[in-house]
């Protein structure tokens, strides 16, 4: 369980997160919001990548985390397998399990045949999938994916959704996006952000999220 209480983050004079309070438990959360709303900042603050100015964040530190950054860069000259091997070492996966684990995640993102390809030869969507593979490596309990569906074709998008649905039962998954349909099908709850504030945090039942989201954001703006 993760608890954010009155979190404020400023860049200079600009307030990017404005008194945000949030509780994350098991299940899948969708983080919706227009460009510049503060989604990435919220994720990075939660993971401790950037420092916050005010408020507190409580997270079980020893819990392993999977994180897909919005901007992905890898060593272009390394192969997919080598790069993932580096990730297994930093995630402290036992030596004997490393190869098996890499194969498992590559299968999940449908990238197994590209295992020995140099990263610079991958397409944008393939790189994105490799990013996802890296995030789910080691089967972490907390997974935060920043715009995971960018660059994926419909086929892969479908595969991604299946992947999340299959594991969301025992984990906390947070997916940021500004595309409503991505979130609609797989998430249990939706958090809508705008201008650094959480304007909605509610269960996602059978509702027309698209329409609802547009209305809320437009009303405020």
């Amino acid at each position, binding site marked *: 369980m993760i608890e954010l209480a009155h979190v404020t983050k400023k860049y200079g004079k600009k307030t990017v997160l404005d008194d945000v309070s949030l509780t994350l438990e098991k299940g899948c959360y969708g983080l919706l919001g227009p460009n510049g709303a503060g989604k990435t900042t919220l994720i990075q603050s939660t993971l401790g990548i950037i420092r916050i100015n005010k408020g507190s964040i409580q997270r079980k530190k020893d819990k392993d985390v999977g994180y897909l*950054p919005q901007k992905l860069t890898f060593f272009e000259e390394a192969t997919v397998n080598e790069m993932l091997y580096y990730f297994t070492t*930093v995630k402290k996966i036992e030596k004997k399990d490393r190869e098996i684990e890499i194969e498992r995640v590559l299968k999940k993102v449908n990238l197994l045949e590209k295992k020995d390809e140099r990263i610079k030869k991958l397409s944008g969507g393939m790189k994105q999938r490799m990013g996802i593979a890296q995030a789910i490596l080691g089967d972490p309990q907390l997974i935060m994916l920043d715009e995971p569906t960018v660059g994926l074709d419909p086929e892969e998008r479908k595969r991604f959704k299946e992947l999340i649905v299959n594991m969301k039962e025992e984990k906390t998954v947070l997916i940021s996006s500004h595309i409503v349909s991505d979130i609609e099908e797989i998430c249990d709850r939706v958090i809508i952000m705008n201008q650094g504030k959480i304007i909605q945090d509610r269960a996602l039942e059978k509702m027309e999220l698209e329409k609802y989201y547009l209305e809320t954001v437009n009303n405020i703006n």
Partner: protein
Amino acid sequence: MKTFINTFKLFFRIPSLFISYFLMLLVDNYLMYKILSSFIGAKNKGMVTDSMYFYGDMGILCFVLMIIPIFLGYEFLRKNNTNSFEVVSKISKGVNVIKANQILVLLLLLVLHVINIGVCLLIGFLKIGTENIFFDEIIEMYLCDFILLPFAALSIGILLSRIRNKYIGYSLIIFVCFTCLSTTDSILTDIYHKTSIPVYYISDFCNLIPPDITATYDPLYGFPMELYRVLAKVFWIVLAMWTEMIHLTKGRQKWKQYVCLAIGSIMIVLLGFRITNKGSVLRMQSYAKSGIVETNYYYGAEKDNQKEKRGEFYITNYDMELTFSDQLYAKVLIEINQHTTLKEYNFTLYHGYHVDYVENVNGEKLNFVRDGDYLTVKNEEGKQLEEIIIGYKGYSSVFYSNKKACFLPGLFPYYPKAGFVKIYEDGYVGCENEKSHFRIKTNGIVPYSNLPKEGNVFQGDAKNVILLSGFYEEKNIGVQNIVYYPMNGLSKEIAETMENTELRDDYKKLCNYLGVFQEDVFERKKIIIIPSSLTFNSVLKSFYVFDQYILLGDSTTAYDVLESQVPYDENKTYLRDVFFYFQAGMDVDFSEEALYSEDDTISDYEEYMEIHDLFITKAKKIGQKEVARKVFNYLADTTNTEKEIDFMRNLR
């Protein structure tokens, strides 16, 4: 191990990296081959002469050893900052294994290169033999320049890789490489002299490669291998390790962070302090504190900081203890002979020496005033004062004195001399003092001296004392001793011209021509050939005669010897210049000499030109031998105060 191998592969998949690495291997092996074959060639011809020049190639080798590891470190690690892996490893609280492995790979590659050079040297030594005079130097150089240098350079690269903007990064690399060139020294020196901000310290930190010795080469000193350059390298290594440690301990316990921060900071400050306080080093070129720049600046034309006041007392006895380490540390006991007690005792002691204390034999402190090259010891109460003890330390940038070598000629006041003495006119003045008894004990090195030596103690009577140490050799010709520098071909040749009395014969001929009786200045004196670096620094003239020894520059002619016999008079400089320009009027065909007055391109007909023209016309009219003799007599006669232009006009 697998991550290491993967990283190793990664290195060799990046063209800019492996190409520069192989380039470094190629260039350095080629240069090593060139250097060693020239040493071997020199050995087979039975001479070590001028092998020093091949060190020039080592300069290029070191430059390569600096620039490429900086680039490798920077380029390989730069990608880490923006890499997603950096973020993920941060979240997982793990070490950035990629970075750690990258550094390990680079270290391994550099170690391989260092071994490569070591093997070259080993082969070289097997062929040249280890007993040659360069052995110690080359070993030192290997440790300092070939082993430490690439790792220091790598550290700079690692540090720079933290800069995200690659254009700033590349500019800084270029800046660092640029600062080790002598051109930068002159720019920094200019800034220093204009603003008096000591910006030249910047180059101390970046000067990792040895100075360009083809320009600053000193065959007596040998290869400059100074502590400050070793420490500058250690500085960068420590700084890089320190920053990496701080990043590693981030998020760990606070006390660990603080301990790390504290130890690192202390080391860096200490190193920085020692690097900027170099002590006595051989540093010429255009560096602000080099011999040529500093001397010119200190005794520059517009400055009048010299005094002349002698003869109030004499020093009968010197008892000195000189310690040579990073600079000269001296404790000098002076015995004074006088009839009346003075209120003030004046001494001359070079301004680079800082006087720590002055006391009498009972250990009571005496007040003193230090003013440039001068030291005045106060004796306000007018007590009987026969012995004074002076403690001082310091260095001169020309007349170096350290653990490796020293060149302290007696004309230079490295020990206190009685009275205020002018030490610099158009070069260092070859002034002599009254005869004193000397007892000099040296620590650190046992130099050569004009005084008889017993262990590390020199004792005897002399007007002044020279101490020199380094790569010199002594040669006996009959009763005469010659000190020369085996690394320098010219100095060997001069030693030979002295042996076959060429110079002495020329000088005799010249004296006969001028009709003057000159005692044989070379008689029974030790002849010390002045290292070309010192004449290069232009602060020494090419010939000095003292009571026990002679300083002889490497291009000294009979005219220089003659010139040393003519006392300097600032009112006779034009005629003096003209006289020696025409080589004392001896072997010159004056009918071929052009007059300034007949040159249409000259608009200002100055005094010098008139004297020059008068010399020619009078020589044609009266006879050149006649003119030469009269002019020489005029120049040598200190009582004749007639203006030089008038003298020439009235000459008949």
